[in-house]
């Protein structure tokens, strides 16, 4: 679905209805902070993609990043597990701390960081392996499992937590690519949680899925936040309203406004936020 099509049916009334259905939106500020970003600037070559972003991401909550395409929300998400390191021309300034440790510090091993901060991508990207091996991949490379029974348990537990076990338990040896799109995405979530991360980053996880698969993933996100801290980038404002407790609005590389999801959607302070969520641009 395109941004334009999304924003057309984003009338405030529907948003309010979505918010009422949303899980309890308790005060965010009182919670412990998992990820703290201070004055983060990102450059792609000469292009200043992200400007002075400062945000606190609370533990065991879902934080949503919204904003029009190209606003820098995915760029910021990829800074949190240093996926931007793989892009040569990308340069990052500022400070991002997880549990009060700067992840761009030289003492941090990026491999260990990514084991702690998992990621789910826009398009489901199962490895060209069996369903079983897709899940076992992470635990194996991190030496978290020893022996077959151990691995079996780990695979079963991860698939159960991702709500996929019942559907695939009889065909674990089949390739991951044989699943449907929504199942593939849940496989990718199961794969991410198999290494027991503390934070899970989701980059528009539902944009390639149909509404039913989307609903399942959203339910899953809500369950997962009990054990993980979740950051989600989404183009769908209803989705942000449904799943998140905290919302941050990005526009042209600037973090315009952040706060409780309820407050952002019902009573935005900034004019740009208001225009965006009422569908006047984006």
């Amino acid at each position, binding site marked *: 679905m395109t941004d334009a099509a999304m924003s057309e049916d984003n009338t405030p009334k529907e948003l309010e209805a979505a918010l009422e259905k949303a899980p309890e939106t308790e005060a965010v500020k009182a919670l412990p902070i998992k990820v703290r970003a201070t004055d983060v600037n990102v450059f792609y070559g000469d292009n200043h993609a992200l400007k002075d972003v400062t945000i606190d991401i609370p533990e065991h909550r879902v934080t949503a990043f919204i904003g029009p395409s190209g606003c820098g929300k995915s760029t910021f998400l990829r800074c949190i*597990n240093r*996926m931007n390191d*793989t892009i*040569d021309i990308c340069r990052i300034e500022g400070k991002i701390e997880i549990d009060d440790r700067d992840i761009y510090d030289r003492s941090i091993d990026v*491999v*260990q*960081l*990514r*084991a*702690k901060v*998992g*990621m789910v*991508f826009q*398009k489901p*990207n*199962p*490895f*060209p*392996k069996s369903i079983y091996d897709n899940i076992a*991949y*992470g635990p194996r*490379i*991190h030496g978290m499992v020893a022996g077959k029974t151990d691995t079996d348990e780990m695979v079963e537990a991860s698939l159960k937590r991702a709500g996929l076990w019942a559907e695939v338990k009889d065909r674990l040896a089949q*390739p991951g*690519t044989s699943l449907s799109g929504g199942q593939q995405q849940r496989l*990718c979530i199961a*794969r*991410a949680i198999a*290494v027991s991360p503390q934070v899970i980053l989701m980059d528009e996880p539902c944009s390639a899925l149909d509404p039913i698969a989307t609903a399942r993933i959203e339910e899953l996100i809500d369950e997962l936040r009990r054990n993980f801290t979740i950051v989600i980038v989404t183009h769908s404002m209803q989705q942000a309203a449904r799943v998140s407790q905290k919302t941050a609005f990005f526009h042209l590389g600037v973090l315009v406004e952040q706060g409780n999801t309820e407050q952002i959607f019902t009573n935005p302070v900034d004019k740009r936020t208001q225009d965006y969520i009422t569908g006047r641009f984006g």
Partner: protein
Amino acid sequence: MNSLILVAVLLLLSAIGYQFGRKRALAGTGGEIRGLHSLPGYYGAYVALWCALPALLVIAIWLSAQGGIVDSLLIAGLPASAQTLSTGELSLLLSDIRNLASGDITSRTPSPMVLAAAERYNDLRSTGFAAMVVVGLALGMAGFFFGWRAINPEFRARPRVERIVHWALIVASAIAILTTIGIVMSLLFESIRFFSRVSPVEFLFGLNWSPQTALRAEQVGSTGAFGAVPIFAGTFLITIIAMLVAVPVGLFSAIYMAEYASPRFRAIIKPILEILAGIPTVVYGFFAALTIAPFFRGFGESIGLDVASESALAAGVVMGIMIIPFVSSLSDDVINAVPQSLRDGSFAMGATHSETIRQVIIPAALPGIVGSVLLATSRAIGETMIVVMAAGLASNLTANPLEAVTTVTVQIVTLLVGDQEFDSSKTLAAFALGLVLFVITLCLNVIALSVVRKYREKYD
């Protein structure tokens, strides 16, 4: 005026036809392109094709048939004494007549009969040519008017022109296929002649290869032994050595270039590696014979090994170097084709670069890699020049890479080089070897393609 000028005239006519067809179509709608069924160019092309195609086809058939018809007319016109000559003498006489007619030197002083026949021959040819010119031009003009008259704004020129193009494409691919079939057939028929003299069982399973046959009865030499096992063993030994060199080096350099090298380094290195593929194999051959083989022999001596001056090892290693670019270039392409999303997915799991390469990228690229290795293998099996120069001629059933062995291609070369009669078992053996070699490389290519296809379906 010769046939080339006639063809040029027809092409000029069809170029004029193109302009006329275009004009007539546009005139039909008063210059309004949108009123036409097809774009004006299609009407032009329609007339041009009608101009050129039938006439050129008839000319082509005429030219190929004329020689035979003229000859038979000529023979029919010869005096009765000449009619009874044997085929060999008759063809000598005919070539005398032809040579005389074209002003060349003849094998003997021409008799009056030959002189008269030469004149008749020239007459027949010029009459035939004049008739061809008339028919060709008439057909061209007729096609012009037929095509030109058919044109009006509703006329569907595009589908017709496209159908001709469609057939042209079919003909082009048929040429490639028919040539292949022709080659296989010539191999097959010569091989059948060979196998009528030497039993296929002896050829395929015999352990003794000695194709020289005695020319005179008292000559020391043999009746020839055609057991091909030693030379196929030699071929496989050298191929295996070559693959042992080419696969690791090629694959590792592909991985380095695709995964680790900076884009600038890659832009420089990849073309340089591909230069290897552009070196003529004969250059590799003397590199093997003059540099690598003496090096191995000297090295062998220094550690107390007896290495032949022409060893399977030297030929195999150089052949391996030659096919490195095949493996590396193709593998590099398939590794690059692995979607970035898979790399991202693996990195995001906390995998290191080498874990990602070993467990995600190589498995995903495996079908392409296997395909490239098999293609390189069939290239190595068919390679000739290096082994001719560096591997030796002695057929030797051995698995020791330090000894001289010979290969199928080397034997084919030595059997057919020089003045040879083409009906002895010795020369015919070359065709049988070629056939077996062809079957082996064909099987390898089929396996390579099916492996690639099978796994591609699975992973995409």
